[in-house]
């Protein structure tokens, strides 16, 4: 740290930078990525196993507690990971301030609604 730095000691210790959120976005993207490695492998393998399954078989599978828990974890981690990723893409490519603001908010809302819809459906099937 140069002696000419304008940063205060407190600012440096907090390590949050000018955006005031530090590495939170970056870290959550990695945490969800690590969680999704086993969850997605399990989900795709299960989907392949369910290929052509009708309603009865699908609902029976989704209704078992372990599957329901893993599905909710998978869906939440996926949508969180997607929201963080799409946010960066919007920040990179949408240069009109108003449009950028609109899309950043819209994407958060869309993924939140997706998550609520999926979790509600999964709970309905499991309970």
């Amino acid at each position, binding site marked *: 740290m140069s002696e000419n730095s304008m940063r205060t000691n407190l600012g440096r210790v907090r390590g949050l930078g000018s955006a005031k959120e530090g590495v939170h976005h970056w870290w959550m993207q990695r945490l969800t990525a690590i969680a999704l490695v086993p969850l997605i492998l399990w989900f795709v393998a299960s989907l*392949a196993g369910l290929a052509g399954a009708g*309603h009865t078989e699908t609902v029976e599978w989704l209704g078992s507690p372990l599957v329901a828990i893993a599905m909710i974890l998978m869906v939440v981690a996926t949508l969180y990971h*997607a929201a963080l990723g*799409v946010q960066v*893409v919007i920040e990179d490519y949408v240069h009109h301030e108003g449009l950028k603001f609109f899309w950043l908010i819209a994407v958060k809302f869309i993924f939140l609604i997706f998550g609520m819809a*999926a979790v*509600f459906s999964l709970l*309905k*099937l499991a309970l």
Partner: protein
Amino acid sequence: MSGSNRPMSPHLQVYRPQLTSVLSITHRATGVGLAMGTVFLVWWVMAAAAGPDYFAYVKNIMSSWVGLLILLGFSWAVFFHLCNGIRHLFWDAGYGFELETAYKSGWVTLVGSAALTAIAWAFGLSR
């Protein structure tokens, strides 16, 4: 400002594509595609919760040849993003930056994602 001799950041139109840059942009493209594709995941779960009739309707759409083609694309995108994502996690941990290693892991990502897609579909279609 006389900036004529300064190094320029690469312009995509005149920059020769390399495995590393192509995989990088493919990672982002598959990420955006998969984020949009979460609508199918949510739709499928909601259809299961909605009941047998609506589930059969959605199943018919997804098992049409257009639906299967879309699912084939999604499954490859999932495996590519997963393999390349693991490659990114190794980079985050500080490993694999040597040019030779970066190219090797790139080819592993390409071949691995194709192989995993083939295995998943062979498993699903054999059911």
